């Protein structure tokens, strides 16, 4: 009856894309490693200061495995990293994994809470703006989102603090969460950072969704559907939506990736105990192992989300799903 799926084309594309993702991660790890190698001067000497005796410096070098050749150290570092051993912090000598673990969980919590609000709102608003384009509603929304994407995140954050925390005193300006809090207390604590991120991400996502939908709505097959005398809702749901799926999924995944990175600034504003905050602190302290580990974790999340975006858009493309 219908043509059989030729599995190779779509599977091959997905496998190829995943392969590229793995290569990207490897190159990134290599870059991160090489970047530290490029540090001027001897790391051990720099950390211990000039007063250190040659013996302590040598011992420290041994601990950091600085006495081994570079490629061996890279393999060892990467191998340890995959096993979850990120080395020790230079600043306080505690295992990096211990520093990072709970903070990364906090960051994911904040990002996930934001995504939960932002994705449905942005997609619905984007579709509405596309359907009612060039109306007052569309113009207002597009003005508002254009302004929001032009604002630095910290501007949005401080305005929200000034309004909701200082003037009205309903939400805390410092988003402190800890293990003793229950879920509602946590949500309350992160309300402002969450809102800040959501506003910024919604603006981006909505604009891209609107553009994607408008692009679909101007295709000849939509005109055809209209000329078949179909109801507007049916045209949108049955004809526009399946074709808009791939671009919209792509928009969502890309913005989730953006969210993970945008979190850095918001964490600093609200003094939120997350991975971004830790990364920024460690960069100014030059705590290299922590910078390496948290940078690599951020990069991996970002790469994975981008990978997911591409794979989903391959899978949701009707032409690729039903090859000739």
């Amino acid at each position, binding site marked *: 009856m219908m043509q059989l799926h030729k599995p190779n084309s779509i599977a091959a594309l997905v496998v190829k894309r995943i392969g590229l*993702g793995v290569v990207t991660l490897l190159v990134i790890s290599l870059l991160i490693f090489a970047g530290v190698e490029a540090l001027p001067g001897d790391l051990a000497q720099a950390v211990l200061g000039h007063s250190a005796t040659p013996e302590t410096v040598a011992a420290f070098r041994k601990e950091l495995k600085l006495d081994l050749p570079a490629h061996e150290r890279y393999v060892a570092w990467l191998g340890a990293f995959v096993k979850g051993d990120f080395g020790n912090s230079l600043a306080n000598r505690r295992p990096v994994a211990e520093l990072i673990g709970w903070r990364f969980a906090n960051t994911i919590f904040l990002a996930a809470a934001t995504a939960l609000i932002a994705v449905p709102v942005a997609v619905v608003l984007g579709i509405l703006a596309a359907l009612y384009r060039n109306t007052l509603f569309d113009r207002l929304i597009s003005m508002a989102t254009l302004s929001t994407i032009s*604002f630095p995140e910290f501007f949005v954050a401080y*305005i929200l603090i000034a309004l909701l925390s*200082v003037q009205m005193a309903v939400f805390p300006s410092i988003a402190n969460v800890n293990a003793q809090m229950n879920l509602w207390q946590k949500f309350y604590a992160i309300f402002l950072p969450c809102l800040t991120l959501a506003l910024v991400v919604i603006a981006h996502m909505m604009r891209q969704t609107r553009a994607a939908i408008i692009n679909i709505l101007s295709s000849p097959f939509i005109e055809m559907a209209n000329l078949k005398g179909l109801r507007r809702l049916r045209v949108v749901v049955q004809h526009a939506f399946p074709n808009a799926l791939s671009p919209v999924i792509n928009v969502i995944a890309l913005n989730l990736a953006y969210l993970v990175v945008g979190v850095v600034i918001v964490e600093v504003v609200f003094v939120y105990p997350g991975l971004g905050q830790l990364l920024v602190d460690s*960069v*100014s302290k030059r705590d290299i192992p922590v*910078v390496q580990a948290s940078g690599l974790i951020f*990069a991996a999340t970002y*790469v994975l989300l981008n990978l997911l975006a591409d794979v989903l858009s391959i899978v949701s493309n009707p032409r690729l799903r039903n090859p000739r």
Partner: protein
Amino acid sequence: MTAAFKLLRSAPFSARLGTGMVLITLLAALLTPVIAPYGETEVVGDVWLEAGRQHLVGTDNLGRDMFSRLLYGARNTIAIAFAITALSFVVGVMWGFLAAVVGGWMDQLLSRCVDILMAFPTLIFALMVLSVVGTSIPALVVVIALLDSTRVFRLSRAVAMDIEVLEFVEAARLRGEGLWWLMRHEVLPNAMPPLVAEFGLRFCFVFLFIAALSFLGLGIQPPMADWGSMVRENAGAITFGIYTPLWPAAAIAFLTVGVNLIVDWFLHLASGLED
């Protein structure tokens, strides 16, 4: 010039508003030494003074005049952001056109490199690189420009690819023209509209990016006035109900909104002209 003026008069309100906003900021930046009542780093009074006759928008965390610092900040930040954007365009457009026009292995090589660089979140990458090379202004310019040029590369390659398949480029090729003629005389003039729009967008992005880095304390370093670091320095005031840090933040938003309004209109115009 008159043509530009005429075009502006036919522009919608939002575009004219944007042009006004950008012009005001540029004028303020150019005339800073004339307008600024105090020096860039001059301590003139108490910490976080209220806005008033003496100090238009009050003083900062060290008792420097906030208005003067805003003006100097405009100069510094705009100049640096402009330098970065210009550099990233020179690099990105050159390589992008080369990839499109030469094609083959050249395109493969450049595109794969850029794919990998772009798979890396820019802010994280910049933070890590700056932690290694330090936060001097030349380092800042080169690092951000190189990171940003990957996006310019993507766009100019795509635009040049669209132009490259048109027959007039093939006609020039068949005539025996060299690479430089193809890029300079055939591709570039036709790539201008999207590139100009992208310049506006990239400028905004770079501007916000530097602001973010400075806000994190890893961008332009004190005592140089810069809008991002001015927010950081005064951030503590906000919990006391003093809104000093909102001024530089609002200034950033003012300029980027202005540029975005113009770009939006320009894009609308360019897409309308096509059909």
